[in-house]
């Protein structure tokens, strides 16, 4: 068990969470909470794997995964933005819908070999001693995309005009509306982008970081962790990155912990009883449950800097937000 291995594994698997969380940040910042991330990820993973398997072209697979997530999210958009239904209920339904569709359409894909996105070294950066070897060599190309998307998303939200419009629509849609910003259109766009990012996260699993189709175990609840991460991170990209990589490392750590007979000089209980590891593996999910329950109080959400109009459908001319 080495720290470097765990760190590198964390960077790789954390990328998956980061894609999904960044997408959810964008959607929630526009006022649309989408609890269907798990469903969108799974359908993205399935679509990416299926297309990469049939065409033997990983890039086509990636595109299919992204679009599958995006298209599914539009269902949530129609229900919550157009028909102004409850976002929680619609999001949960989306998880069921996405999961169900993915399992049916992914029937028979288990154990097949699809084309996979390439791994590569970043020229120059990878030659930096230690640092380059850990962060910039022999990673799947999507891991590097994660590196770029985090600061890019931050910059977009806080330093650009469309980012300002995004925040306005999520904080006070009526103000945005009076200034000619199309609240409905922006919310559709960001819901779609959120879905695409979840699809990308799914594709990152099935055709890049831990390739293969293992039905519902492919995502194994990571969509929920991604949502919790957004709450932990106060709707900001950099903390999402930290949390994502941390959860990634934790995952690898719990696996590696079963290896050595002693740990920190003591008898390693996990070596003798592998069942104990289950408790460790639960940690991210327990944290997720705590985050979701704790974060479900509107007052607490407000205090933590949740967009003021999060979860509130916009109806022109109604008093309030």
């Amino acid at each position, binding site marked *: 068990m080495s720290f470097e291995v765990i760190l590198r594994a964390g960077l790789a698997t954390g990328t998956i969470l980061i894609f999904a969380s960044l997408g959810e940040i964008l959607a929630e910042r526009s006022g649309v909470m989408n609890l269907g991330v798990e469903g969108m990820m799974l359908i993205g993973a399935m679509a990416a794997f299926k297309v990469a398997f049939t065409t033997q072209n990983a890039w086509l697979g990636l595109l299919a995964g992204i679009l599958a997530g995006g298209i599914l999210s539009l269902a949530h958009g129609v229900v919550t933005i157009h028909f102004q239904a409850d976002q929680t209920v619609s999001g949960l339904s989306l998880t069921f819908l996405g999961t169900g569709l993915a399992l049916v359409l992914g029937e028979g894909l288990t154990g097949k070999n699809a084309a996979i996105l390439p791994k590569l070294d970043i020229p120059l950066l990878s030659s930096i001693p230690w640092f380059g070897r850990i962060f910039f060599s022999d990673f799947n190309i999507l891991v590097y995309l994660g590196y770029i998307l985090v600061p890019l998303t931050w910059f977009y939200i806080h330093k650009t005009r469309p980012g300002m419009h995004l925040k*306005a629509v999520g904080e006070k849609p009526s103000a945005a509306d009076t200034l*000619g910003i199309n609240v409905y259109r922006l919310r559709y766009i960001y819901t779609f982008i959120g879905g695409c990012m979840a699809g990308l996260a799914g594709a990152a699993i099935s055709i890049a970081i831990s390739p293969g189709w293992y039905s519902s175990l492919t995502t194994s609840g990571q969509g929920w962790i991604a949502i919790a991460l957004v709450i932990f991170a106060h709707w900001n990209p950099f903390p999402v990155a930290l949390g994502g990589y941390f959860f990634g490392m934790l995952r690898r750590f719990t696996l590696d912990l079963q290896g050595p007979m002693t740990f920190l000089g003591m008898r390693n209980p996990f070596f003798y009883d592998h069942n104990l590891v289950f408790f460790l593996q639960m940690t991210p999910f327990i944290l997720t449950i705590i985050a979701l329950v704790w974060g479900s109080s509107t007052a607490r959400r407000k205090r933590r800097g949740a967009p003021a109009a999060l979860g509130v459908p916009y109806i022109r001319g109604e008093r309030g937000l």
Partner: protein
Amino acid sequence: MSSIGQENNFSVEMEDIVLRFPGVLANDHVNFTLKRGEIHALLGENGAGKSTLMNVLSGLYRPESGTIKINGKTIIFNSPKDAIASGIGMVHQHFMLVPTLTVTENILLGLDEPKFIMNLPKYNSKIGELQEKYGLKVDPTAKIWQLSVGEQQRVEILKMLYRGVDILILDEPTAVLAPQEIEDLMETMSALVAQGKSIIFISHKLNEVQQVADRLTVLRKGKVTAEGIPVEGLTRTQLAELMVGREVIFRIEKHHKEPGEVVLKVSNLSAENSRGLPAVKDVSFTIREGEILGIAGVAGNGQSELVEAITGLRPCTGSICINGQEVANQSPRAGMKCGMAHIPEDRTGVGTAPNISITGNAIMKNYRQEPISNGWRINYPAADEHASGLKDLYDIQAPSVNTQARKLSGGNLQKLILAREISCDPKLIVAMQPTRGLDVGAIESIQNLLLEQRSNGAAILLLSEELEELFELSDRIAVIYEGELVGQLDADQADLNTVGMMMTGSLRSDE
């Protein structure tokens, strides 16, 4: 068609505007004109259709029929953006600002420039120049939530000026301001008009209209009752009559009364607001029998939290004694048992259950008592009788006691609440904004009801943003600023200026 000189005279001409909401004819063939460089007041009671008409002019609503001409040209607006492009900008009653963004960002919102990357310093200085020109001071880098209400209003005006608007619509701009801020606003309005802008000033405060407006148009129940008449020479009584449709007596009778025993004793009361921040800080006061204590303050300085703590709706620290009985941190019912009546700020959310009948609302406090119930079963005929007794006594206008409360007008709903609270023969009345948004006629009867209770020996805690009302009704006036009582004065010794300065935090009385 007509001569150019004639057309140029008017910047806005609205003809025959009709707009219907479900069940209401909000604008019934309304005509309205605005001359260039004038301040035109738009008067009317609440629900008279003023804001609706202006929402039509600012592109938010589309009229069913009628035409709008801007500078003589007929124009159809599809959105507020179109209206702004034609030089019309509206400052809404509820500010349309994003609290988490800065002043500059709010002003730039929705514009095509900057294209992609925000270069805030550049725009901060641009907005600084605009502020210089019109004398509207506010820090461009501050976030909206950090600003006072007066400053937020300046941001709203700046937002419109930045867009090169010539016609400004101000929707009840003074409703939320302290007296000094109102003075500042009046000056700003004069400065804007001097620079060639035209202003439509929506209000139901007659004195302000008389002070700044050149002409006025009055709406009543969606119809125009006076169209573009000059303000000069009109008396307040005439104005009120145009608004309400009948004569209104402004003087209210208040007899001198020697206060009796202490009824409410609040000591060292502190409470947090819903965000967990301190809202009421170490407040102490007493009210005696037959005494009205008025609490003045700009909205959002802890008034709501204070009332909620006293009425048992919000946890607090400190002590609240009603006739010697401690009620702090107990249920609202504990206060009710000590003879407390509560006239809440929010009439439809807290004061009544809008979807149940007048009867249901009328018995909400005494449904446990004979003859309305025998302990477990409600005797509806008796309840109806009780309710119709109140309906007649307090002159509540409604088809029957089975009418749902939400179908009542604001004034009648408030009368229903007062009827319920007063019929329990209260020792203490806590009234928050009892006349807000009501028309002159309803205000008159609510105020008289409160004074009647004072004569009967009730102690009354009155919170209001209407200083005039506070001065007329109260025996003593206290000022709340950022959750603290910054001064307590006898009403006959207090003057508007002192209270106004206390309300904005620039003066404290040393006690």
